[in-house]
């Protein structure tokens, strides 16, 4: 992973953490299982999908909607970084 990609991943994780923590009104560690802990309803799961699409200009379709991609903040971060993979970071 290049330096730029690492910075992007970190910023992405921070942004997702902020969104999730705000919504569930709790500190959420990046590796916490959101579904297993009952923090996430199906409505919120869909909000997460739409939020990630809007905030990071990606489209999450088909197989990418798998639960495993949304299980933790870390997994969502990895998904976003992967979907943005083809692009240069906006700030370089």
């Amino acid at each position, binding site marked *: 992973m290049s330096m730029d990609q690492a910075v992007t991943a970190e910023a992405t994780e921070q942004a997702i953490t902020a969104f999730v923590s705000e*919504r569930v009104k709790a500190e959420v560690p990046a590796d916490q299982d959101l579904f297993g802990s009952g923090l996430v309803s199906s409505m919120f799961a869909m909000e997460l999908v*739409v939020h990630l699409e809007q905030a990071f200009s990606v489209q999450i379709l088909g197989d990418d909607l798998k639960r495993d991609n949304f299980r933790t903040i870390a997994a969502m971060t990895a998904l976003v970084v992967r979907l943005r993979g083809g692009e240069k970071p906006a700030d370089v």
Partner: protein
Amino acid sequence: MSEPLAGAREIVDDLVGDRAAEWDRTGLIPDDVLRTLSARGLLCAGVPEASGGLGASSAANGEFTAFVGSRCSSLRSVMTSQGMAAWTIQRLGSAQQHAEYLPKLAGGQLAAVAFSEPEAGSDLSAMTTTIEQDDDTVVVRGQKVWTTAAHYADMIVVVGRYGSGAAAVVVPASAPGVTVTRVAQPSGCRAAGHANVTLDEVRLPATAVLGGGQPLMLLVTTALAYGRISVAWGCVGILRACLDAARGHARTRTQFGKRLADHQLVARHLANLLTSEQIATRVCEHASRCWDQGSPEMVVATVLAKQVGAVQAAQGAATAVQVLGSAAAHEGHVVERAYRDAKLMELIEGSTEICELILADHAVSMPAT
């Protein structure tokens, strides 16, 4: 109305004319009406142009949906099913599946989406239909009930269990093992082609599976989102039809030496109908704006729109029945149909009570203002 739907209302008026009451009575919309609208992309106007659709925004498609709903809720209901099928394919399908199915839905074919089962209505998490992988094929087994538009459909998008999660699968209505049986004389949207669908060892190519592995309720919530916004706009249409009929009657009918509109107790009904129509319209506009902006608020705004729309439509239709009196107290009158159709809208796509539970959950969990 924006460009993709220019002329669409005229086409609908031309096709529907004054036949909605007859369709309600016979329980059938003529095939050529549905095929013509499908071929023009009007039953799922949100399908992107790249996939052969009209690429209408949610706001424009919503206003068009309300227009159709003001003419015939059965036709609007078929539209809702077709749009929901297209949306589900858009969300869950691969690029190849988009290319395979979407141009058909915008090009003359008809589709339905099957969720409910005998033991899984409001509690869709109890569904037992299975989609099982078998080499490069899948086998679909289960029983779906109350599938809107299934009677007309060429393809039925069936939601079921798939591995440890869920998937949707596009089932041709003609596939061996598929039996479609009409629901006899539904109480509302009588010509919407509600049917029960039995899937007896239906074997399909694995390429018919959309997505796969999603949590069941995320898949259901995603697919239903389109159905809900579409029903909500359809309810706006019901309210507009009721308002038109009630004010028309109150302007012309005279009792006790003056127009009904000049009797205060009747005037209140008119005010309430106008209020209902405006409330439902604004809530739908907000939800559609969220869709068009890609805002995560669309999820809750859509449930809110469905809830407000259905409750207001049921109330508004009852009010209109009261204003029209004996003038509308016969089968097939626009207000009599609205009364039956609107009540059904409180039962489908998440009953009023289920929507209330979702909204309550949101109220509890939402951040402080």
